[in-house]
Every structure is written in structure tokens, then in C-alpha cells.
């Protein structure tokens, strides 16, 4: 691991200012993704700015009937919050489907959104990877792509975003609140937060350099039966091959987002009116233009079957 200096930020303005001064600094929250990558020298910050003391650890009701989740709220606490369990069940379910109890006790809301891909070539510094080292090529395109994206990829990168939480937040139309290095706040709809790889796969999100996430807000509850189904190689403690976050209303209408299939949580609003016609109709529309590879073509059928199972669960 590269040597780094370490400081504890005591207030948000100081945190972004400290970040702006030091080009190779990074924020650290739970550390469960950043330290993992630093050990492999995939991330090589020269300074760490610890944001754990910023006080962003509360979940509060908003004026419009929604919830404001502090950036530092631990995944365990978010999943266990009574309001989240009652009104945003898909989020609670997605959270407990991710990682392990130990990791969720540390993992934060912001860190979870910003965790990097689990593409095996990204994780292996001996392999070419445009995301890790821009311009070096993509090992996955010619290699094993079983876990990788079937839609929204590019000639430069076919990685997936590994977060379960983000898929639920996408289906709930969450927004990400930030503070930029100039001290200005802004709000990014989750749909615009994660980006597609295009020719710049090294950039995962639309966050600016040194921009601090302060909170994630959820709009007022939308009711319905809320389901998160995750299919993986073992029953627990593994990343998704495919996951489905669905909110199904009594009349059969609803919303759905998919995980494990693209560089961002995959939701196509135009496919949702097809929910009353069944899973295949939705998947045909949501995955129109998909470019599966030999190894991961199974994900399309798996997405359909996982959605069918989620819809059956919602009706039960």
C-alpha cells in the first residue's frame, strides 16, 4: 500500500476544502471498499480525509413526507430503521441482501453508492483494464464475461455496478445531495448519478472531483408491495449475477430496476407499463438493444425469470 497522511474532518466545508488542496486525497468512510483497493494499489491516495466525524449519521423526515438519509448512516442502521422497513421495504431488503453483517456495520450510504466494480480484470493489476488504467484495453471483452454487463456497455468497458442498495434507490427515485469543493450544495437524481462507461470507463459517476456526498433523500412513500430478489452463486455473501428491485401496486402496475446487468442500476421507465402483461414483456422492453456476450447471455433469461418470481412474490 502506498503511504498516506491521514486527517479527521470535523465539518463538511473543511472536508471539501482539504480535498481541494490535495489532488491525490480521498475521503474515507467505512473503508470497506477503499482499503480493499488500496491494498492492491488500485487506489493510491496520498492523503485520506476521514469523514466519519461529520455527523451525517441521522435519518430524518423531510418536509414533503420523505426521508433524508445521512451519507454516513451505516447500511445496518438504514436497513433496520423502522420507517425504511415499513415504507421503503425494497431498500431494507436490498441492503440485507448485500455483503455480510460485519461489512454492513461499517459500510455507509455514500460509500455503498461509490463502491467500484467487481470486474475480475479490474481487481487484477496484471490484466489490462480501461477503468483501472485508461487506455490499457479491456481484459473482459476478450476474456471471461460471465459476471459482466449485458446492456449499456461500450467497446471500452462492460463492467457492472455491484451495489444492491443503489438498485433499490433507483426504483424509489432517490436523490443524492452533495457539497462541492467551492462549498456549493447540489442534488443529483439517482438516475443521473451513475454513468455508462462510454469512452471514459474510469469515471463511475457524475460526481465532481472532491465533491462530498452529504445525504440521500427518498421521496414520499409510494406504497405497493416491495420486493428485492437477488440471484447469486451462493445463497449469501456474494455479489448479484442478476437482481430485481420491484414495487408492485394492487392494480398490477409498478416499477422495476435491475442490478448486475449494467454499469449502473438499470431501470427503463418506458418498460414499466408492460408490468401488467408479465415479466417477459417488461424484460423485452427494458433490455431492447442488449449486447450480451457468450458467457453472460444467460442473464437476459435470468432477469426475466427473476422478475417473474418477484412479481409472483408480490402477488402472494
Amino acid at each position, binding site marked *: 500500500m502506498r503511504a498516506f497522511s491521514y486527517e479527521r474532518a470535523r465539518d463538511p466545508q473543511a472536508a471539501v476544502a482539504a480535498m481541494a488542496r490535495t489532488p491525490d486525497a480521498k475521503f474515507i468512510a467505512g473503508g470497506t471498499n477503499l482499503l480493499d483497493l488500496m491494498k492492491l494499489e488500485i487506489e493510491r491516495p496520498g492523503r485520506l480525509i476521514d469523514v466519519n466525524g461529520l455527523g451525517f449519521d441521522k435519518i430524518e423526515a423531510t418536509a414533503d413526507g420523505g426521508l433524508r438519509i445521512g451519507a454516513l448512516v451505516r447500511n*445496518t442502521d438504514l436497513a*433496520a430503521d423502522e420507517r425504511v*422497513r415499513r415504507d421503503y421495504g425494497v431498500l431494507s431488503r436490498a441492503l440485507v441482501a448485500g455483503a455480510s*453483517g460485519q461489512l454492513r456495520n461499517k459500510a455507509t450510504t455514500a460509500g455503498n453508492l461509490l463502491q467500484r466494480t467487481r470486474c475480475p480484470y479490474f481487481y487484477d493489476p496484471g490484466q489490462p483494464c480501461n477503468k483501472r488504467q485508461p487506455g490499457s484495453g479491456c481484459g473482459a471483452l476478450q476474456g471471461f464475461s460471465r459476471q459482466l454487463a449485458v446492456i449499456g456497455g461500450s467497446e471500452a468497458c462492460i463492467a457492472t455496478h455491484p451495489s444492491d442498495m443503489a438498485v433499490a434507490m433507483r426504483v424509489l427515485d432517490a436523490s443524492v445531495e452533495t457539497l462541492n469543493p467551492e462549498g456549493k450544495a447540489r442534488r443529483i437524481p439517482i438516475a443521473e448519478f451513475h454513468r455508462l462507461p462510454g469512452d471514459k470507463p474510469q469515471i463511475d459517476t457524475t460526481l465532481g472531483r472532491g465533491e462530498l456526498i452529504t445525504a440521500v433523500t427518498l421521496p414520499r412513500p409510494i406504497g405497493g408491495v416491495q420486493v428485492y430478489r437477488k440471484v447469486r452463486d451462493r445463497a449469501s455473501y456474494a455479489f448479484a449475477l442478476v437482481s430485481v428491485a420491484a414495487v408492485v401496486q394492487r392494480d398490477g402496475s409498478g416499477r422495476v430496476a435491475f442490478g448486475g446487468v449494467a454499469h449502473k442500476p438499470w431501470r427503463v421507465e418506458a418498460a414499466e407499463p408492460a408490468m401488467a402483461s408479465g415479466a417477459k414483456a417488461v424484460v423485452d422492453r427494458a433490455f431492447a438493444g442488449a449486447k450480451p456476450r457468450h458467457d453472460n447471455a444467460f442473464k437476459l433469461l435470468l432477469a426475466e425469470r427473476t422478475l417473474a418470481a418477484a412479481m409472483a412474490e408480490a402477488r402472494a
Partner: protein
Amino acid sequence: MDAAHKLEISRRGVLIVGAAASAVAAPSVSEAQAAGADAPVLAKVAFEVNGTRRELELDTRTTLLDALRENLNLTGSKKGCDHGQCGACTVIVDGRRINSCLTLAVMHEGGRITTIEGLGQPGALHPMQAAFVKHDGFQCGYCTPGQICSAVAVLDEIKAGVPSHAGADVTAAPQVTSDELRERMSGNICRCGAYSNIIEAITEVAGGNA
């Protein structure tokens, strides 16, 4: 004072170690270490381990696991993967189980850390340690300290109503069932496959039947 000069002063105000006016408090970094780009940086940290206050000066890169094992000689916590994938390094910090390999020691200023050594000692075992012995909840024993720390915390999590993936209904209060325990213990891998005995041990401590 011109603007550029003022900026320089405020910048130094933040960088100077321990400056009272600074809103970003750096841990004590000795001048010499801060020099070269890749030179190790030392920092001081103090926390309580198994009830005793410990003060350390460490390379900032030191994980909590390495601090416990290498600096404090508490070798009960094990390093299996060093990447959050096995649970052998599980310890309880401020009442919660975490992977000590994926956190920095310097991030735990003022923290309360309990390792397997702090749960109980030969002759005065913690009930969970005694139950693992009674039910043969291990073979080689390498994963065991992490399993036991995790198991102790799992029962507290169930008591506190923290939901899990095993519960069909996230709004319902979780119960101690073997499905719940298996799911909640999934962050602790056992290469020897002692899983079913581990579940029996935990179930006994929880006061139920396996």
C-alpha cells in the same frame, strides 16, 4: 494582507498539526515522516482494547487487525484473506462486529474494542466460547475467534431487531432460528466445514433447541 497571502496562511492553519483554529484535526504526524512522497507516515491513536487503554504510534497504513496482532500481541484475531471475504478477523468495536482487516487503526480513536481474548479466558470462558467447545464448533480452529466474536454480536443484533435476508418480512421482529443464524453468520467462512456444530452452539447460547 493580500488575498494570496491570506489564503496561504489559512492553508497552513489547517495543515499545522493540532492548530486550535483548524477545523480539520490531523493526528500527530512527525515532521520528518511527512516529507517524502512515499515515506511512511506515523500517527498516534489511543483506544481501549478488552478494557485496557492502549496508546500506539503507528504507520497510518496499519489496519486494526495488524495493530491488534503485531503491536498489541493479541494474536487471537486471525488474518484469513485481509480483504473482507472470510470473517476470521472479526472483532467487536463499540458494540458491533466488524472486519478488522478493512479498517485503519487510526480511525478508532477513543473506540472500545473487544477481541476473543477479551470475551473470556481459559478457566473463565464466555458462554459462547464454552458452547463452541461443547458442540465441537471447530476443527482446526483458525476461523473460530472470528466465528465466536461474530456469534456474540449476532445474538445482540437479533435482540435489537436488526432484519436479515433470512426473514421473509422485514417489518417483523427476527427470531433465533437456524435459517436466521446461518444467514447472519454467512460472513464467517469455515474451511473445515464446522458450520452445523457452530449453529448448534449459538442456538444453545440463545436458549433454544438446535
